[in-house]
């Protein structure tokens, strides 16, 4: 009974999405095209002519594509953990209405998470289709690589929604974008291996969930072993999601049932 209410929240998101899907679908296709052409092909032509040993003998486009898959998924997840949440609490106050029904704060938190995960999965699928068209990955391996990418997206959605649900103003959202999402996107092993970073900083990667997601996606897409043990990468990605979801539920409850 309680779980089915969570699904009703997901259903509400889907019904709302009918009005906004065009814009988001368009950007889901165009963004990977832009990144893969500019970085993969453009920048990649210079990287490949330098024969970088750090990439393990793989052309830059093929090396970049799975990392970008995970990093873009993280961005989607982070976005869905912030704007819809502050809108529900503050801008549109749609959460206020929902809470007067059998819906509990936990249903809103998990409903948003499930919906964001579904969206991240669709975006990842679109990305893999585009990347396959670019010759950047094989479709089958690409599909496998979406699994850790989507799990990473879910983890970030959960963790960031836990923070967003405590915000009094939307100022913090820009800070999350600027100081968390963008630096992670750039430095967590997406565009270059973290081994290229100074040693003191490179070790820090082990504490960054996105890096683990990138490692898993890349390993699956390229059919080779990741940097660390598989189990460690998987444990961090899954652990981040579980802890994030628990924090999100607690945070929603604290904010909304006061």
């Amino acid at each position, binding site marked *: *009974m*309680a779980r*089915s*209410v969570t699904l*009703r*929240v997901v*259903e*509400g998101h889907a*019904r*709302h999405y009918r*009005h*906004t899907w065009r814009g988001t679908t368009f950007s889901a296709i165009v963004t990977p095209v832009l990144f893969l052409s500019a970085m993969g092909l453009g920048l990649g032509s210079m990287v490949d002519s330098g024969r970088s040993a750090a990439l393990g003998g793989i052309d830059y486009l093929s090396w970049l594509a799975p990392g970008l898959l995970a990093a873009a998924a993280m961005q989607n997840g982070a976005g869905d953990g912030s704007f819809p949440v502050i809108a529900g609490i503050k801008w*549109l*106050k*749609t959460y*206020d*209405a*929902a*809470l*007067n*029904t*059998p*819906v*509990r704060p936990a249903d809103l938190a998990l409903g948003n998470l499930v919906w964001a995960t579904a969206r991240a999965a669709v975006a990842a699928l679109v990305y893999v289709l585009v990347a396959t068209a670019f010759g950047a990955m094989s479709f089958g391996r690409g599909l496998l690589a979406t699994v850790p990418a989507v799990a990473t997206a879910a983890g970030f959605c959960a963790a960031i929604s836990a923070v967003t649900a405590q915000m009094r103003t939307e100022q913090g959202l820009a800070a999350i974008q600027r100081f968390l999402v963008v630096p992670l996107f750039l430095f967590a092993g997406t565009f270059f291996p973290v081994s290229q970073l100074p040693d003191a900083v490179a070790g820090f990667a082990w504490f960054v969930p996105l890096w683990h997601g990138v490692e898993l996606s890349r390993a699956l897409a390229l059919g080779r072993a990741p940097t660390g043990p598989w189990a460690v990468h998987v444990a961090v990605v899954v652990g981040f999601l579980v802890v994030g979801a628990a924090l999100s539920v607690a945070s929603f409850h604290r904010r*909304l*049932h*006061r």
Partner: protein
Amino acid sequence: MTTPAAVPAPDRTATEPMVLARGLVKRFGDFTAVAGIDVEVAPGESFGFLGPNGAGKSSTMRMIGAVSPVTEGTLRVLGRDPAADGPEIRARLGVVPQEDALDQELSVEENLLIYGRYFDLPRKALRERIGELLDFVQLTDRRKAKVESLSGGMKRRLVIARSLINDPEMVLLDEPTTGLDPQARHVLWDRLYRLKQRGVTLILTTHYMDEAEQLCDRLVVMDGGRIVAEGSPRQLIETHTSREVVELRFPVGEQEAALERLDGLGERIEVLPDRVLVSTDDGDSTLAEVIGRGLTPAGTVTRRSTLEDVFLHLTGRRLVD
């Protein structure tokens, strides 16, 4: 709440209060919003919380609505404990919150659909129910319209329809007509009156005394988180004020001087910044005496006492400033 098995079931449901609060307290940090109130609402009753902004009305409503935990005291809603059975209680309540909280980007119908699905109502039954409800609140021709295109009164009516989607036993209305023009208020009052006639229990908060007089069988006056008076609108007026009030308006600067000569007039005198209110059982003779004392107010009104006067007497302040 356990009742001995010997009591026949139908009898019990008929007499069990819809809301039972004893020593109810709500605190936010150091701030006490509700400072220990006792409330009992009977089935089918129309009950009001009257008071100025900040009196603790909304906090009380949120506790009854099972969305805000009780700090101290006991609360039973529909015979259940909101802390333990929140979702079950909310499944049987209708709520009209102070802010509409409608999804502006969606149509009237979609707003009701999404809300109805939260109650796990089947889609087909829901579509029928939405038709009936839109009929009831006179929004049938707006079914496909986006919410943002509706007027304030229409949105309010839509929120009433939304609150009825689950066929609730009790409807909570937090300042249902604040911000509406007089015509829209009367339409809304009419719909609420019809609900009441169908046997739905209504609990509302308001700071309009005319609204309380129109809609409430019984009400409590709240101030500073406490209940300062309780009864039917008529009882409250009879207990706390005289039958009539004479309002005297003096030219600017002359009120002060006039006050001395009004001394001893009527049962009681309230001085407001812009006028003087004299409580009396016979307005006409009081007014005659004012003139007899040689006073020449710029304007006079003789009227029946209202709940506003009750509030003024009890707290020394007006309800709406």
